C-alpha cells in the first residue's frame, strides 16, 4: 500500500517535467537560403539547451518544445537576425540557463575563474610540499654528515 502510494507520488512529481517532452512529429527538413545560414543554424541549436530534457541541446532533442524552438531559430535566421539577437530572444524567455556556454558576468565569475583558482591553489600546495621535502632531505644529509 505504502509502495503504491510512493510510486504514484513519484509519477505525479515527474509528470510536470515530462509533459512537454512528448516526441515531436517527424520534422520536415528545413530549407535555408544559403549554406552559411545552415551552418549558423547547426551551431546555434548545438549551443542552446533543450529545457525539457536539460542535458540535451536543441539540435539533438526530439521533444515537442525543442522542435518548436528550432522552428523559431530557423525563422529568425531567415528573417536576417544575427546570432546574438537569436540568443537574446532565448535568454529573455528562458534565462541564461538556455545557453550551454554561460556568459562571463558577475554571477558566473566563480564558474569561470574557480577552476583556475583551484589549479593555482594546487600548485601552491605542491610548491610548499616540495620545499619542505627538500629542506627535510637537507637536514637529514647534514645530520648524517655530523653522525
Amino acid at each position, binding site marked *: 500500500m505504502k509502495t503504491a502510494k510512493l510510486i504514484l507520488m513519484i509519477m*505525479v512529481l515527474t*509528470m*510536470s*517535467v515530462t*509533459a*512537454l517532452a*512528448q516526441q515531436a512529429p517527424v520534422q520536415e527538413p528545413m530549407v535555408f537560403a544559403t549554406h552559411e545560414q545552415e551552418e549558423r543554424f547547426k551551431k546555434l541549436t548545438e549551443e542552446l539547451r533543450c*529545457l*525539457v530534457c*536539460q542535458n540535451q541541446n536543441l539540435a539533438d532533442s526530439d521533444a*515537442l*518544445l525543442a522542435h*518548436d*524552438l528550432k522552428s*523559431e531559430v530557423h525563422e529568425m535566421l531567415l528573417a536576417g537576425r544575427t546570432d546574438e539577437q537569436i540568443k537574446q530572444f532565448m*535568454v*529573455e*524567455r*528562458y*534565462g*541564461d*540557463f538556455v545557453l550551454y556556454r554561460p556568459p562571463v558576468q558577475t554571477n558566473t565569475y566563480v564558474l569561470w575563474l574557480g577552476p583556475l583558482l583551484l589549479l593555482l591553489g594546487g600548485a601552491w600546495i605542491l610548491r610548499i610540499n616540495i620545499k619542505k621535502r627538500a629542506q627535510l632531505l637537507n637536514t637529514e644529509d647534514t645530520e648524517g654528515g655530523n653522525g
Partner: protein
Amino acid sequence: MSSRIIPLAAFLLLVALLVVGLKIADKKTQIPSPLIDKPVPEFDLPVLGQAEQRMSAESFLGRPYLVNFWGSWCVTCRVEHPVITQLARMGVVDVVGLNFRDEEQDALAWLRRFGNPYSVTLVDFDGRTSIDFGVYAAPETFLVDSSGKIVFKHLGQMTMEVIETEILPRLASMESGT
C-alpha cells in the same frame, strides 16, 4: 599536525558541497524565470469556444490576475485542477486559463468534464505565446499585477501551500500598496 587537518578539512568541505548539491538537486528543474518583474509578454489570442472574440494583454490591465497554462494532454493539469478551482472560488483573483497546443474540442470537453474555474480561457494553438512566456512544461502559473507586471511564477502543479505562502501574501501586499 596541520598535515592531517588540511586533508580532513578538505574532505569535510567536499561533504558539505555534496549535501548542498543534494538539497538543491530537486530544484534544478526549476529554472528561475527571467520574466519576473518584467511586463507580461504581448499576446492577442482568441477566447476558447468564441473564436471571433480576441483578448490581448491590454484587456487585463487594471487588476491583478493569474495566468494558468494548461492543456487537455497534460496529466498534471488534471491533478492540480481541484486546487485551481478552489483558488478561483476564493474570489481573490481572476484566474485566466491559457490553453496551449491543444485541440478546441478536447479543451472544451476537458472543461465540461472537470469543471471550468477560469474567468476566461484563451487559446494558444501553435504555442507561440507559451514560448514568449518561457513556458517549458505544463502546468505553469504566472501572477500578474494590475500594471501588467509579472510578479511570480510557479512551475508545475499548483498546491494550497504555494497559494498560501506565495500567492495570497503577494495579492495582499498589492492591495495595501494601492
